[in-house]
């Protein structure tokens, strides 16, 4: 692989009236890696992907996909790109084979080469034996597989997957995640958008966190987690006297932050194992009883909370 970035995003901006959907987003994706764009609904992920797919024209900025500018070289971009949209985008009254054949033609495949590739993709997605049934008759999971298969037909260098696991059952979700990893193993670059932290953590080489149109953080999982100082979050509930206990907990060694919301006291600490006994003891001294304990190791949820003050799922 060359040093050429697979995707290079340079200060992309897009507004819809007063709604600034994407505000100066820049990042880079190396060839052969999985890059996740993580963020809640409305963060600007799909708008960013749409611009990178040449579906939307950016108001400002540019991006390059395998060296092709999305502004000036759209054909080059589209030839290098495979897109798996969030919604199933297939012709339900055509068979899987007919769908793949048609889309293959749209990606400039023809003749025997197209036929061979369609067979190959049907094998990859495991639907060879049902290829001649109409897609409308497929289950949701099967449709999603064909949806992915279409993006693979022309062996793109880069593949976008826009929230491919939304609304599907755990088994299908697992299959998709596994297939993403396989794509990377085959040398493809994957730009993956999701609002599921676990997916981003599991799959990604690099993660970009978006919120309100901005890229608020970008890096590996470890780098992002370090932003919150690798602190563990401990959520505790008390039966009484929380207002007396909290100041005391702040004095406990290893505790960096104590806050309360909706009856839950959150403690950020370096090491929960060291801190917990002291928390219990302090509570007892103040005639308070801890009724529940929830320990959260440092993760992207915490990062998002740290950076925005909101939970990722809010």
């Amino acid at each position, binding site marked *: 692989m060359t040093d050429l970035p697979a995707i290079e995003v340079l200060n992309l901006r897009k507004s819809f009236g007063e709604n600034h959907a994407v505000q100066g987003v820049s990042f880079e994706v190396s060839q052969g890696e999985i890059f996740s764009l993580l963020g809640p609904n409305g963060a600007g992920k799909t708008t960013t992907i749409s611009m990178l*797919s*040449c*579906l939307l024209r950016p108001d400002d900025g540019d991006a390059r996909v395998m060296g092709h500018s999305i502004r000036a070289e759209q*054909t080059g971009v*589209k*030839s290098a*790109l495979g*897109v798996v*949209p969030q*919604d*199933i*985008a*297939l*012709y*339900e*009254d*055509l068979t899987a084979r*007919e769908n793949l054949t*048609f*889309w293959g*033609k*749209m*990606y*400039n495949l023809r003749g025997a080469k197209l036929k061979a590739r369609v067979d190959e993709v049907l094998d990859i997605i495991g639907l060879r034996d049902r290829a001649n049934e109409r897609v409308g008759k497929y289950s949701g999971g099967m449709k999603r597989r064909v949806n992915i298969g*279409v993006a693979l037909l022309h062996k793109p260098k880069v593949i976008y997957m826009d929230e491919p696991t939304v609304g599907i059952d755990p088994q299908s979700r697992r299959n998709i995640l596994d297939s993403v990893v396989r794509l990377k193993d085959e040398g493809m670059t994957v730009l993956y958008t999701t609002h599921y932290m676990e997916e981003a953590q599991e799959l990604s080489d690099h993660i970009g966190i978006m919120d309100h149109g901005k890229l608020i953080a970008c890096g590996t999982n470890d780098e992002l987690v370090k932003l919150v100082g690798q602190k563990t979050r401990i959520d505790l509930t008390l039966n009484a006297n929380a207002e007396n206990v909290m100041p005391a907990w702040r004095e406990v060694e290893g505790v960096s932050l104590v806050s309360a919301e909706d009856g839950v006291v959150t403690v950020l600490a370096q090491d929960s194992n060291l801190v917990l006994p002291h928390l219990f003891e302090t509570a007892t001294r103040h005639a308070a009883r801890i009724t529940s304990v929830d320990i959260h190791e440092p993760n992207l949820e915490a990062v998002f909370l740290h950076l925005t003050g909101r939970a990722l799922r809010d």
Partner: protein
Amino acid sequence: MKILDIALKDMTRSFRSVFAVFFMLGVPLLVTGMFYFMFGNIAGEGGFNLPKTKVAIANLDEGGPKFQVNPRNIPGGKKADTMGELVVSILQSDEMSDLIEVMLADSAAAARAAVDNQSAQVAIIIPPDFSDKFADVNEDAVIEFYQDPTLTIGPAIMKSILNRFLDGMAGVKIAVTVFLDEADSEETALAGQVVQLYLKDSLAESDDPEAELLEVRLPTGTTRNKEEESQNLLLSIVGPIMGGMMVFYAFFTGASTAQSLLKEEEERTLPRLFTTPTSQAAILSGKLLSVFMTICVQVAVLIVAAHWIFGIQWGEVSSVISMAAGIIFSASSFGVFINSFLKNTKQGGVLFGGVLTVTGMLGMISIFAMDSPSAARMGETVSLLVPQGWAVRGLMNSMNGEPLESVLINLLVSLLWSIVFFAVGVWRFNRRYA
């Protein structure tokens, strides 16, 4: 090549829908078949064998002293003591039995009631003083003709029969009246002789006054074969209806097929198409080509099927091709045009149904009211405000064997409509997906 791929893909989807195929092909043939059956049923030997007109006659004539009816002067030699009986016997004669079915009523009210309750179409009420008034040179005799106002043909035939007979009788009375007006008092006794001479010399005695008075020729090229005549008559009604249905449903197919752009937008396959290295122009062109080709298939199938099933003669080959081209181009372009104004398919359900129904009906007015001069005028004016009107006009010109030039003029106008519709439609779609 991609344009063709997209077009063929859309056509495959269209023709896979049983519903769409039925709507495109089945419905026009079904509606026409219905009319073919309606009229084919009664088309017999030479013209329509219309059902007999049911006539209720109330003969209240009490007779008149002065008028003696010579049985020799009554067709069939029937006896009649009064003028009223004469009228009744004429209407009940064998010559009339093919056209009318007479029922006798006891009173005027009963005769009118028969019409009101639809057991008769016409009531003829001969007043009590009919013979008296006929015999009196200073009086006019009147017969009441009471008809069902919703009917036109039966009563018109009955009126025509009655008028002809009464004209004959009136001729006699006029002859006598004029004679008496001009004769001296001593000559008035010759009035009876005048009647006899009049009846002897006039056509009242003729078995076939039509043949005596008129020499009827058919225009050159018109068949004399009665069976062919009735078939021509049938086709002259059914042909335009089939043509009208073809135009109407071709425009529906155009709009429905063009709606695939909106459908694909909603199915999200259109945005996906835009992410492929296929130009927007190619995508749009492919979709337009599919509309065009689908209508081509529809029109071709309907022309052939109608000719084969109903024997409809569409005209000379060159005219038929021109006419068909006019329909195809205008239907496909109009479909694109309408759909370019829609935001989504939900709007399309009503908008194109409403717009297409309105414009289609407007274009077909002259077919709905075939024998009406007003409708013919509208066919040349109001109907031409919509593309369907021009398509129907081209169709009728072709079917009527008009010169190719007049069919080509319609084609030219249809093409002009098409260019405008395509231009606007394509511009709007391009702007939408820019």
